[in-house]
């Protein structure tokens, strides 16, 4: 083994699986590098092999097939923001991708796959993907499997490990007339959020008929509030219901993060504020 890391450039998924299966845990996949490189620069991670997946065509592109939208994991945030298909059928995702911190530079190179596998509590895409009920294809040396993103996250510690590669994301288009919102509490334009929430709401006249709410940036992983708040369905939004949603969402945060973005008690309180705000904003857009 050389003192310096080696480099591998698989041309297709088959080669990628073969390389991943044959290397030790010191091998790391690199796509845009926006998650990996800061850790490398600070010595927190020292890959023995970089596996550059930028040449693999199967990881690229956005398409619609059989009523579902596929987004290749190598798709950069800027393309998620500006793609016509995503803008028209998944406006929540397009908007959330535009709220990612780090500025235009990071939007140009950071990928949706990298953002997912980082599973960083402060990143912006996971709450929306979970609210949208995303599924993902994961490749390892045993082949490609399709799993619900929510299930993948329950299993994962940090990322997928060095033996798996996220291939693509599957999403069903949002229902016509659904209202949506992504609210992010942040201090600076390009910064991380201290709490955020993605919401999708459908209404029948003024009554809520379906509700998806996921709160992020307040605990180690985003928290799906949809079941907790399911009894909002059948009710019209009111000041009373809003207060109840806020209190119950805050109570769902069992182990709040306490870091430079704010202390735990405040984060828990803000979880409720963001959930309430996201639902309110989504209801305004529904129709």
């Amino acid at each position: 083994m050389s003192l310096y890391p080696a480099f591998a450039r698989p041309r297709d998924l088959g080669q990628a699986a073969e390389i991943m299966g044959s290397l030790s845990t010191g091998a790391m996949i690199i796509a845009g590098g926006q998650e990996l490189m800061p850790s490398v620069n600070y010595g927190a991670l020292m890959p023995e092999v970089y596996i550059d997946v930028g040449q693999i065509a199967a990881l690229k592109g956005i398409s619609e097939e059989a009523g579902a939208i596929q987004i290749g994991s190598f798709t950069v945030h800027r393309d998620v923001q500006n793609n016509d298909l995503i803008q028209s059928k998944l406006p929540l995702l397009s908007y959330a991708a535009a709220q990612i911190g780090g500025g235009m530079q990071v939007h140009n190179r950071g990928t949706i796959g990298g953002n997912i596998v980082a599973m960083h509590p402060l990143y912006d895409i996971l709450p929306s993907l979970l609210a949208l009920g995303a599924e993902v294809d994961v490749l390892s040396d045993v082949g490609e499997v399709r799993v619900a993103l929510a299930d993948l996250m329950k299993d994962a510690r940090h990322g997928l490990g060095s033996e798996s590669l996220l291939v693509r994301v599957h999403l069903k288009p949002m229902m016509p007339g659904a209202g949506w919102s992504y609210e992010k509490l942040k201090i600076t334009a390009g910064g991380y959020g201290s709490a955020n929430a993605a919401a999708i709401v459908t209404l029948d006249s003024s009554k809520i008929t379906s509700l998806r709410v996921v709160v992020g940036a307040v605990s180690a992983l985003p928290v799906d509030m949809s079941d907790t708040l399911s009894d909002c369905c059948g009710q019209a939004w009111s000041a009373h219901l809003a207060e109840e949603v806020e209190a119950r969402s805050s109570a769902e945060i069992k182990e709040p993060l306490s870091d430079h973005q704010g202390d735990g008690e405040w984060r828990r309180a803000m979880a409720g504020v963001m959930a309430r705000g996201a639902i309110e904003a989504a209801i305004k857009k529904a129709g």
Partner: protein
Amino acid sequence: MEDMLEDTVLVNLRVNGKLHELEIPAHKSLLDLLREDLNMTGTHMGCMTGHCGACTVSIDGRVAKSCITLAATLSRAKITTIEGLTEEDGTLSPIQQAFWDEAGFQCGYCAPGMLMCTAELLESNSDPSDSEIETALAGNLCRCTGYQSLKRAVKAAAVKAKEKAS
């Protein structure tokens, strides 16, 4: 499988129009390649975490932070650095001149990022609003100007770019 691993990587990069063929170690960042191998020190090293934007360059027409870009992944890319903004005769470009006129920098450390992002913004938006400027510059930190003169500079640059185009 060992035959698929390279200890060094051959990259062909067109930097500010000039082609460079380099054999580099796999772990080299684009920032280090520009500063150490090509002696182009206009691109600044700041935080090394992707927060400050001082290392910004354009890769295939899109701005990126070179400190968190692995050079080995960029074979056959076209890179424009701050040095590449200058006109062919060595005079300042309209954007650079606008930053000069409006004091769009003080110490100048953040200037590469501010200028490269402004150049990309003005390519698609000839008359940006305050909020569009804020979004475009959000990936760059400036500790001197308080950002007001930067906004003025971008607006002045938009006017100059339009004058030049007409």
